């Protein structure tokens, strides 16, 4: 009567994986405990809801596997590869060191790294014991050396000055001679050039004037001819127009004269045919 199944038993009962003996016990327990039964029914309902999520359709892809089963060799192992890579790196460094010849030295608090150079280590400067001099001796030494230096400089300056003046004189004389020669040549050349230039200019001008006059005479002739032609054409045209006008006026006068003649004839005919009527009309006026 005190039997109380745990969750594991209840879930095994729900899925039918409980042995027959325990199934009876659980059923009796559930009969006595409707709350637990309801809980189990709720879980069963969840199961039925979950069953609506079906499977996804999928086609198994072909899987090709390498049939040869390689026995792993010791040189294919990771440890061997690691050791070999370290050894290769060291070897590479040694070869590189041999080629570029690095030098590393430490002396006197100084670290030196050099490549492909002879080892040069500065030797410490040996301090030679110098006998001490007095201040006056040192001053004398300085004075003498300064005097010597000044003399040397002044003599050097004098010598240089002389050389400079001599070279200037030489260059001036040579340059003036050259310039004179050049000027002579230039003046001679310019007189001849001017003459030829003026002669050519005169000739050019003459030719130009001739050409101009010829051209202008031709043009004027052509222009006068064309003007005369145009004037004669104008006169002819004017004459034609005057003739036409004259003919028109003559014809109109002739027409008027004919008309007047006909009217006169008609009046005369009326007078002749009816002289009384004409007289009455004259009286009425």
């Amino acid at each position, binding site marked *: 009567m005190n039997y109380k199944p745990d*969750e594991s038993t209840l879930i095994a009962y729900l899925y039918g*994986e409980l042995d027959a003996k325990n199934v009876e016990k659980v059923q009796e327990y559930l009969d006595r405990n409707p709350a637990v039964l309801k809980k189990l029914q709720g879980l069963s309902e*969840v199961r039925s*809801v979950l069953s*609506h999520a079906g499977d996804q*359709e999928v086609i198994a892809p072909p*899987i090709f596997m390498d049939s040869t089963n390689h026995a792993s060799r010791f040189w294919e192992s990771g440890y061997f590869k690691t050791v070999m890579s370290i050894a290769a790196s060291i070897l590479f460094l040694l070869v590189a060191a041999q080629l570029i010849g690095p030098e590393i030295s430490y002396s006197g608090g100084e670290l030196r790294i050099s490549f492909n150079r002879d080892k040069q280590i500065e030797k410490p400067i040996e301090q030679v014991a110098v006998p001490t001099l007095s201040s006056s001796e040192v001053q004398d030494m300085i004075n003498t050396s300064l005097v010597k230096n000044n003399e040397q400089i002044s003599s050097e300056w004098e010598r240089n000055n002389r050389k400079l003046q001599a070279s200037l004189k030489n260059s001036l004389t040579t340059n003036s001679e050259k310039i004179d020669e050049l000027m002579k040549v230039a003046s001679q050349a310019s007189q001849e050039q001017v003459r030829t230039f003026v002669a050519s200019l005169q000739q050019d001008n003459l030719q130009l004037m001739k050409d101009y006059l010829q051209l202008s005479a031709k043009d004027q002739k052509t222009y006068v001819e064309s003007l005369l032609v145009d004037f004669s054409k104008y006169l002819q045209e004017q004459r034609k127009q005057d003739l036409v006008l004259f003919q028109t006026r003559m014809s109109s006068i002739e027409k008027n004269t004919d008309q007047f003649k006909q009217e006169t004839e008609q009046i005369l005919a009326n007078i002749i045919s009816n002289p009384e009527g004409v007289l009455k009309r004259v009286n009425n006026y």
Partner: protein
Amino acid sequence: MMHSDTLVSRAREGDKNAQGKLVQLWYKRIYNFSYKFFFDHDMAMEVSQKTFISMYKNMEGLQEITRFKSWLYTIAVNQCREELRKKKTRRSVSLHDLRPGEHEESYRWEASSSRSENPEKQLRQSELSDLLQQCLMELSDEQREVVIMKEYEGLKFREIAEALQISENTVKSRMYYGLDGLKKILESKNITKETIGYEL
């Protein structure tokens, strides 16, 4: 039983045909297990392929032929956990993770064996399946793998315990609390037997 012991025995001895046959027999189950675990087609494909490659490589180490099923699920579960670990450590988030299951829509339509059925019913079924899948994803990884193995893969508690290398009572306990948790999740989403029946 999806396979005979002879087939497993032959596969263990290196028979390529037998191994190929095993892949053909079990691929759909392993894919569906992985798919329900991740709710992701690509991840499921990845896990399935890795599982069968591992199966091929370690076939000789299978001690008992009768335990092939749980042994295979052990590999699958380990692969799932490995992928899950990678996914958690990965910083980037794929677009698919934002709306899981959406891109399989057309795939499922094309691959569905019941294409002659009413399309509307088929669509509702697909939507319900996705909804239930989302509910499953709310469970913890441990509870989810037990629920999937029991509810969808039909493994016995003993086989699940062997596959997960835990005690049978632990499996049952996870199953109990997994179902209980699912009940609450379903209730919160108003998914009951009646509403499903009305919808379908």
